[in-house]
């Protein structure tokens, strides 16, 4: 009797699945005849399989429960996703970046600063799976600052971030720091960039723009049992300030009169609201600023978190996204128009990407 029941159930499953698959229009278009390779058919079956999403989640959750806390290169720790850095042994990219900074400083001889922002995997080490070997970012940061001493002023944000490690410094689903993390970066940077009075967090209005944000790590990791992130805008409330934010990208310039153009959420995504997204060059002027200082910032997307705070002390900041910038766009940047130059990168982008080779195209380099 038992065998017959198993037989019936098995036959039912074998009949139900193909019937379901053939009823799905996406699968019906896949020709099961000789025209399509077995791999293509297999992929199509997997994509259109009944309850495929639930089954995938089940598989990933089982693997996670089974101890597999690193899936698709992403660490899964309870409610947080994290990425470790795996640089090449010779640190080719990082060395090239450091050499480019040295060359830049020799060419322009302007006050320059270097700020390397550690990633979540090293600041929130307690969330990294036990025994996982993670890259020693602290040692790398110290070594980079040592090698560039005499060329740049080092802004060490590591101790500040580490002392606030229990706070919401990093997105759970995105490999970058939050607005709050950006605030702590600002507090550490303020002491070096100008010894300004550090504004208290209470001096900023906080606008929670999105409570359901899923970032790049969520897309990369198969694990789905993660609470979405909250993306917040920090607005300096003490004095009303007027900004002109001009983005220069391949489509030509576009301009906003706020640091947080909220309508961009509908067009692009939540991250496009912060400074209006990232472009090869973003020029931000504070029209009613008492500060005359001008900052040229070579960086990555982590600027979106701390720049709103730094802007309190500048009249103009030009952000150059060195991953996106072209030689043509660099020709329009004149270093001598700025009082300070800041190289600010998340450690992963500094170690893994050749960020600064483009600087040789700067006029006067």
């Amino acid at each position, binding site marked *: 009797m038992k065998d017959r029941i198993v037989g019936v159930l098995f036959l039912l499953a074998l009949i139900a699945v193909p019937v379901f698959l053939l009823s799905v229009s996406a699968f019906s278009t896949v020709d099961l005849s000789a025209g399509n390779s077995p791999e293509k058919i297999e992929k199509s*079956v997997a994509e259109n399989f009944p309850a495929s999403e639930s089954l995938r989640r089940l598989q990933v959750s089982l693997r996670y429960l089974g101890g597999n806390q690193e899936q698709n290169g992403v660490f899964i720790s309870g409610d947080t996703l994290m990425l470790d850095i795996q640089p090449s042994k010779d640190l080719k990219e990082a060395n090239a970046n450091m050499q480019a900074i040295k060359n830049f400083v020799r060419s322009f001889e302007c006050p320059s600063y270097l700020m390397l922002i550690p990633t979540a995997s090293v600041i929130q080490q307690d969330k990294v799976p*036990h025994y996982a070997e993670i890259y020693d970012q602290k040692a790398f940061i110290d070594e980079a600052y040592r090698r560039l001493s005499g060329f740049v002023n080092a802004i060490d944000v590591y101790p500040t971030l580490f002392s606030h490690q229990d706070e919401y410094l990093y997105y759970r689903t995105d490999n970058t720091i939050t607005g709050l993390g950006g605030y702590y970066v600002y507090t550490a940077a303020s002491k070096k960039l100008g010894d300004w009075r550090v504004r208290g967090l209470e001096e900023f209005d906080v606008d929670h723009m999105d409570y359901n944000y899923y970032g790049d790590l969520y897309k990369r990791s198969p694990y789905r049992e993660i609470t979405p992130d909250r993306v917040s805008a920090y607005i300096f409330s003490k004095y009303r300030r007027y900004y002109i934010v001009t983005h220069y990208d391949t489509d030509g310039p576009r301009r906003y009169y706020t640091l947080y153009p909220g309508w961009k959420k509908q067009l692009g995504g939540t991250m496009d609201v912060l400074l209006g997204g990232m472009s090869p060059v973003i020029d931000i002027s504070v029209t009613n600023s008492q500060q005359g200082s001008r900052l040229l910032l070579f960086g990555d997307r982590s600027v979106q978190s701390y720049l709103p705070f730094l802007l309190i002390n500048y009249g103009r900041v030009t952000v150059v996204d060195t991953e996106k910038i072209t030689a043509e766009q660099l020709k329009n940047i004149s270093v001598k128009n700025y009082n300070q130059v800041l190289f600010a990168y998340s450690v992963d982008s500094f170690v893994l990407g050749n960020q600064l080779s483009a600087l040789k195209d700067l006029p006067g380099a």
Partner: protein
Amino acid sequence: MHMFSLSFVYLFLPAMLLLCLLLPVRLRPVFLTAVSAAYYLLLERENLILLAGVILFDYGMALLMSRCRDFQRLRKAIMVCSVVKSIVLIAYYSVVNQLNGTHVPLGLGVYCLTSMGYMLECYRGSISCERSLMKYALFAGFFPKLYAGPLVSYSRLMPQIDSMRVTLKKIGQGASFFIRGLAKKVILGDTMLTLFQSLQAIPTYDTTVLTVWSMVVAMAFAAYFILSGLCDMAKGLGLMFGMELPDNFSNPYCSLSVNEFFGRFNITVNRFLRRHVYLNLGATQGSMISGIFNILLVTILMGLWFGVSVNLLLWGVYFTVFIILERYVLLKYIDFISPLFRWIYCLAVVLVSFAIFIGKTPSGSLEYLKIMFGFGNNVAAFDDRILYLLASNYLALLVSAICSGNLPGKLLAIIKKHAPKLGDVASIIFDVVILMLATAFLL
């Protein structure tokens, strides 16, 4: 579209079963032969010609042999010709694969040895040759058994091919085997293989004692679950189409001696070699030297079943030492040794053998053996990397250990004994759950 793919389980198999059920019994062998050929063509393309060539050649040779009943020398020449052809084919592809990584056609060893066994049986006169090419082709090339066996003798399979009765009960029994085999392969076997590959990727200078022990354990589990899973799937598919294939694995890691291990690991290959090589050479009937030689030859051939390489040859030699030791020395004392110690001894011998199995060269294996036992300069007992990999796979390792001892099966048997209905329900739920899990792991 492998047997362990979604498209096979949920498209190819239902279509095949449905058509088979609709066909009259006499046409089913023809249908299954055509399906096997189509499946092989889909996976192996032009290698189908090789499979067809071997089948046609041995089919023709056997017919020729049956016509030369009175010419003993000619019969022998035909048999030798066929056997040499099979051996040369296996050896050629294995060597070429070793030298330049050329792909070995799927099931080459299985269909060549099946054909070889058939020819030897025909030569001895224990069976009469098959007249139907279609049935012979199905006997030699039935696609589910091409992955990892089992090797089936003509006298066992052919009567079943003649009366392929498909019943709901057999489909149920077959489904159970197929589902459990699929789960063994995709959930445990592949996970253990991935763990093994992660461990193998660690450079030798970073390898610790625990790393090598973990490697051999992972490889032992991977080999067992992948091979036995494929054999269970083959058995299950056979049952669904009305053919009962023999078991090829029977909880080998529960063995209490190396001799017993070989009786439980790759059973049909072991049986084939015993029948056609060992017994033909006189087994242990002659002098001790000839007995030892015969054991050595069979055990080496067992190793070479997995491919032709110096390491696999050494693997066979290594086991020979223990088989001879058990047969000629330990046999007298075996009753005085507790089963627990015998099991530990056998498991240790088998696990250490996998250090020879996994080494790419003899010196690589020697290096693993040295590290395994803590010899060499600055060999650490363990490090964070190995602890991380073990922690990342602890559940899979635990479940593999439990399943390699067939504990779920034993538990179900106990439940069935005391509460048959509850046992049946548990068994059905178990099958449904693992089909769902195996499907999830295939996505």
